């Protein structure tokens, strides 16, 4: 089933124009969708009330909708959540009364209709909290990118750092784009997943960069493109293995982890795939486009030389 060693000689860099075109297309679609359709933001960001209830048997959504409408909650959205017994009811902006919270009103209405209803979850997010989270979430992504840029610039050459950031922005935009195109619910856990994707994708990129740096010194006679190709091919075994193990656990999480973290596992799974692709193509190709060459790595050469002596 497996080759003993992924001893490939794939000309990745030679096909970089194709991959660049593909990436630009994906990013364009993502950005277009984000601006036209927007995101299906979850309660965490929009504010509102959410009630999840469980029934003993399959729930009759029509009945629930009807009683809610009769009781003045015509705008409530009612849908199954995970199983046919579980029902999720969302209410957007509705006047919240201090003495009698909306969630209690909803539960009472449902209990009157069917006694066998079990409260599973209630969430209320005030409008000010939602706004804050949008702001804080955006800032968290920005700060993360910035901190990483500084770290990579410090550890590598700035062109590598820019390449890595290009890959990260690429991954973030396309993952958010997926949520926009498919109108999947974008909540706090998805945001957390995207930050984790940033960490993961960068991890991948750095491993490849490390090898490129090493090979620039080792394979002095070869041109930049060749060095990059060799490096990527050498690391391909590792890249594939790690992506597969990570993807495996995420698939498990998607199927077993429950409805609450579906969005989370989708974002991570997709992000890992995109991240793997970007660390192969986008990061290296960007560094190359910025004109990275052996000469830029002269200060690092010393470190590489030392390592060679050790051998």
């Amino acid at each position: 089933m497996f080759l003993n060693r992924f001893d490939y000689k794939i000309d990745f860099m030679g096909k970089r124009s194709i991959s660049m075109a593909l990436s630009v297309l994906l990013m364009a679609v993502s950005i277009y969708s984000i601006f036209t359709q927007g995101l299906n933001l979850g309660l965490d960001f929009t504010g509102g009330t959410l009630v999840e209830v469980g029934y003993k048997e399959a729930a009759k959504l029509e009945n629930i909708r009807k009683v809610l409408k009769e009781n003045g909650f015509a705008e409530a959205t009612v849908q199954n959540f995970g199983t046919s017994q579980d029902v999720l009811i969302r209410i957007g902006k509705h006047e919240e009364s201090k003495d009698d919270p909306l969630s209690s009103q909803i539960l009472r209405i449902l209990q009157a209709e069917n006694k066998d209803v079990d409260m599973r979850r209630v969430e209320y997010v005030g409008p000010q909290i939602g706004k804050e989270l949008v702001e804080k979430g955006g800032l968290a992504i920005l700060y993360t990118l910035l901190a990483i840029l500084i770290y990579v610039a410090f550890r590598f050459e700035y062109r590598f750092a820019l390449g890595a950031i290009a890959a990260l922005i690429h991954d973030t935009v396309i993952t958010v784009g997926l949520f926009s195109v498919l109108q999947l619910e974008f909540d706090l856990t998805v945001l957390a997943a995207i930050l984790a994707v940033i960490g993961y994708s960068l991890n991948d990129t750095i491993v490849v960069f490390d090898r490129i740096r090493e090979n620039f010194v080792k394979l002095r006679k070869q041109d930049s493109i060749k060095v990059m190709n060799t490096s990527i091919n050498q690391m391909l075994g590792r890249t594939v293995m790690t992506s597969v193990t990570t993807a495996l656990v995420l698939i498990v999480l998607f199927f077993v982890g429950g409805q609450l973290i579906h969005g989370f596992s989708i974002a991570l799974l997709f992000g890992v795939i995109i991240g793997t692709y970007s660390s192969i193509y986008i990061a290296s190709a960007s560094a190359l486009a910025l004109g990275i060459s052996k000469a830029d790595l002269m200060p690092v050469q010393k470190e590489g030389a030392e390592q060679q002596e050790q051998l």
Partner: protein
Amino acid sequence: MNQYPTWKYLLIASVIFICALYALPNLFGEDPSVQISPAYARDMKINEQVQDRVEAKLKEVDISYTSIDRNPRQLLVRFKDTDTQLKAYTILKKALSEYVVAQNLAPATPDWLRSLGGQPMYLGLDLRGGVHFLMQVDMETAIRQDEETYIAELRSRFREKKLRYKGIHRVVDGNGGIMVTFSDLEVAAEAKKFIEKQYNDLNVQADEYSLYLSFTEKALKDNKEKAIEQNITTLRNRVNELGVSEPIIQRQGEDRIVVQLPGVQDTARAKEILGATATLEFRMLANDDDEFGSRLYKRRNGEPVKLKRRLIVTGDQINDAAATIDQRSGSPAAVVRLNSEGGKRMLQTTRKNVGKPMAVVFIEYQVETKYVDGKKIVNRSKTEEVINVATIQEEFGNNFQITGLTSREANNLALLLRAGALKAPMEIIEERTIGPSLGKENIDMGLLSIVLGFLSVMLFMWMRYKNFGMVANLALLSNVIILIALLSLLQATLTLPGMAGIVLTLGMAVDANVLIFEKIREEIANGNSPQSSIHIGYEKAFHTIFDANITTLIAAVMLFSFGTGPIKGFAITLSLGIVTSMFTAIMLTRGVINYFYGGRNLTKLPV
């Protein structure tokens, strides 16, 4: 080549052993139990008498318990099943009404493990069920109320000092403040001097006939601090009423309070209680002869006290209270500051009653809304308790102190005096309630994901790297054990996303081993000997692993600083998992490989 000194093997083995020990408490499950603890800010101890009362009561109704543990903070009675627990809870709640009696699921950690400090992980609300409220304190109203108190006070002080003013009012627009106008320039100047001397928390701006007073930056800050602290104190008092075993009431940011009540399902009732209003009353003790003008009250310990019906001062007339040391006797005391109205009434009363006892009554109003046949029925109940009786030593007005207390009592009394009412109104801006069934399901799904994720990665690693793969799997298993041990020791909150973080760590932690093993294969393919390939593989992969992990760590730390509850849980497990994986994937696997393959003459490697 490739041999560790014995101490290194021992170090690795003992780290694993200790971690396994501290991960162990998570395997023992929980006992249904009833927890009895002192009500907040009341001077009660959980002593032998309490235990005796509990034991006697349970014996009386013939309920058997499996164990009973007592420490100064709580008494924990464990039962064999939840039915017995519920029965015992109902009875004990009635019998020990002055304590907080709560149903609880106590960790069934064996004693020997507990004595080593072992305890299971702390589960978040999304796993154990319960209510989370985020409350916003309305600071503007708090400041406005302060200004009004000052206006009342200034009015009477001006009168006292014969400083005739024309008008005094709150400035409604802009930054607020107080405007005092005079008809005489000299009086205005004198008043300015007076205020500057007496009130260092006020800024005074003079403009001919008028003075504009505003709180100094420091006073504003202090007032805000006080408002939020007092609200927290009030909330703590009220949570007592709910009988929650481990409530969390914490300040968040400048003007917010988080309330977490594990196990509470009835949010409507929780909201009612948290929003309840309480107050205080000062009354004289009744003599034996005024039968008609008196009423019977109860003290904290149940002892009856007869108080006069005539009210001296109420809680809303209390401006401030604090614990202090009496200047004359050097003993602890509680200072109380009343507003002008209250001060006047207090002066009148104390003038006539020197040497007589006065009582402080704590009154709590509760609103309970019930629905019977769809009709709303509101029950308002009132609880009254005498919290302190003290003898009047001399006449006093606005400022007085209550002595004859221990320093603890003085602190508590001051707290209760302040906690009588919410300093500033609050609004619930976020609520998250998780039902018990969902919490349980979340745990089950989380666990299943961890087990299945683990097995699939193990299988995959074994298929690709054979024996070396199994070494990586051993490292992975150790990683989970260490992670669980750390989470248990740190008592970091484990949430559902936190469990997802563990699963993700499983997938990512093998990366280090993949890097090392691929490098070893590469070196072998380059014609190196097996031993030197192992050596180079580990040496050269280290920098890459370190670099790569640091970046994920950066993302995790950012996530931690930004995230709320459940998300923080994810950030914690992810970052801990990364750090521990560095140890297991590098040191531990190296140790195992050195032990089995090091120093031998190998012709090929099972990698």
